[in-house]
């Protein structure tokens, strides 16, 4: 499979998800969008949105906790599949910014600092600070407004401002600055879907150049596996056919091989 095909599929999955949200809301089977998705009374709340609100955690119901648990388990098992295939901002960033920063130090320190500061600021202020500038939330509200017959022009303007700010300041938004990505990176320490390298690898660096996050999968580092958004571009480009998508058994002893 070519990289261009993968990008087309990625665009398609995002568009399908948005159409899915629109139709489900219109025909009233399920409600909500990215921020919260209500499936037969179980609310799947954005984990960052929930964790920023101490008052909401205090008042949370059992169904809310069930939804959160399912979301977290999905992230732990699948890793950052949301970032790679369903995030509307990720696909836009990958389109507009072809030259991502090459992260020599694929450190998860940034994710830790990002999340700890975010929770510290929002818990001390008492307000969910990230929700104001969350670009995914803006998309979510544009979808819900469209279902409610409102053309959310201020949402679109605010979204454009935030997106331009992100593009101007960071080439590595998805690489630990976005709190959602950071949380998913930290949670995917024992994910099952992994990309493995075999002995065919000729260390040509082609996978790193094709990777939107500039990860060096062939170095077999755990942090790279945690940051991987499973976009499969490295597998598509590898000239030696050395990379493979595999299901990693949690108990297997030879890790990262």
């Amino acid at each position, binding site marked *: 499979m070519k990289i261009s095909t993968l990008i087309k599929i990625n665009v398609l999955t995002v568009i399908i998800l948005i159409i899915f949200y629109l139709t489900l809301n219109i025909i009233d089977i399920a409600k909500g969008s990215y921020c919260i998705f209500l499936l037969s009374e179980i609310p799947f709340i954005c984990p960052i949105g*929930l964790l920023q609100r101490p008052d909401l955690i205090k008042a949370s119901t059992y169904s809310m906790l069930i939804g959160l648990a399912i979301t977290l388990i999905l992230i732990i098992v699948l890793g950052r599949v949301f970032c790679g295939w369903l995030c509307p901002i990720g696909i836009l960033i990958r389109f507009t910014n072809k030259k991502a920063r090459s992260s020599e130090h694929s450190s998860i320190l940034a994710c830790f600092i*990002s999340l700890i500061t*975010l929770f510290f600021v*929002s818990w001390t202020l008492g307000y969910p*600070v990230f929700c104001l500038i969350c670009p995914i939330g803006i998309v979510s509200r544009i979808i*819900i407004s469209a279902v*409610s017959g409102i053309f959310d022009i201020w*949402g679109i303007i*605010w979204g454009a401002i935030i997106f331009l700010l992100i593009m101007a300041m960071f080439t590595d938004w998805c690489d630990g600055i976005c709190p959602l990505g950071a949380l998913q990176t930290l949670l995917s320490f024992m994910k099952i879907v992994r990309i493995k390298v075999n002995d065919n690898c000729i260390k040509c660096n082609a996978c790193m150049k094709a990777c939107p996050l500039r990860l060096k999968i062939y170095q077999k580092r755990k942090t790279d596996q945690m940051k991987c958004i499973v976009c499969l571009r490295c597998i598509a480009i590898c000239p030696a056919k050395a990379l493979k998508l595999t299901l990693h058994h949690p108990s297997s002893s030879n890790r990262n091989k």
Partner: protein
Amino acid sequence: MISRRDFFKILLGALFTPLLGGILFTLPRKKVVRPPGAVKEDLFLKICIRCGLCIEACFKEGRGTLEPCGILDGIALIGTPKVNPLRAPCEALYGKCEGKLPCVKACPTGALKWVEPHEIKIGSVEWYPRRCIAVLRGGCLVCAEVCPVPGAIVPKGRIPTFNSNKCIGCGRCVTACPAHPKALKLTPKGERRAS
């Protein structure tokens, strides 16, 4: 090892979103009219997840008066619901939603709580006599005709008088006001919040 330059780069990136959000929260914000059953403004901003489900429920089962706040209302309020009588009046009392409150039922977080019908008061109207057709030319008492609350708008002679204690802030008079610009404005003054 991480070089110092990389470390500061990482630090800047990591501190960016929380600090920007924190600064934006301190910017001035307007007072908007919240849907019925909203908890106190401070708690409302803390709990509301800005998902827009109340807005959707209002459109589907109610009159469609709710809309998300924009940048002009203050960045801290972005995405939270507000009552816009220019769209439609809020019929939480004396109308389509009486005893149902679809917005409250749709709220997944408890930022909107169930309130008994007689306790609903989301705001009151402000009157600008200089724009009012009844004052300028006479003959218009549309606001008094559409008002569902006994005693809230009473015509005195040919001019309407407003009793903000009795007004529940439904906004029917604002929707109906034929003056341009509207002689009436819905404000959250005197609103009763759920506890």
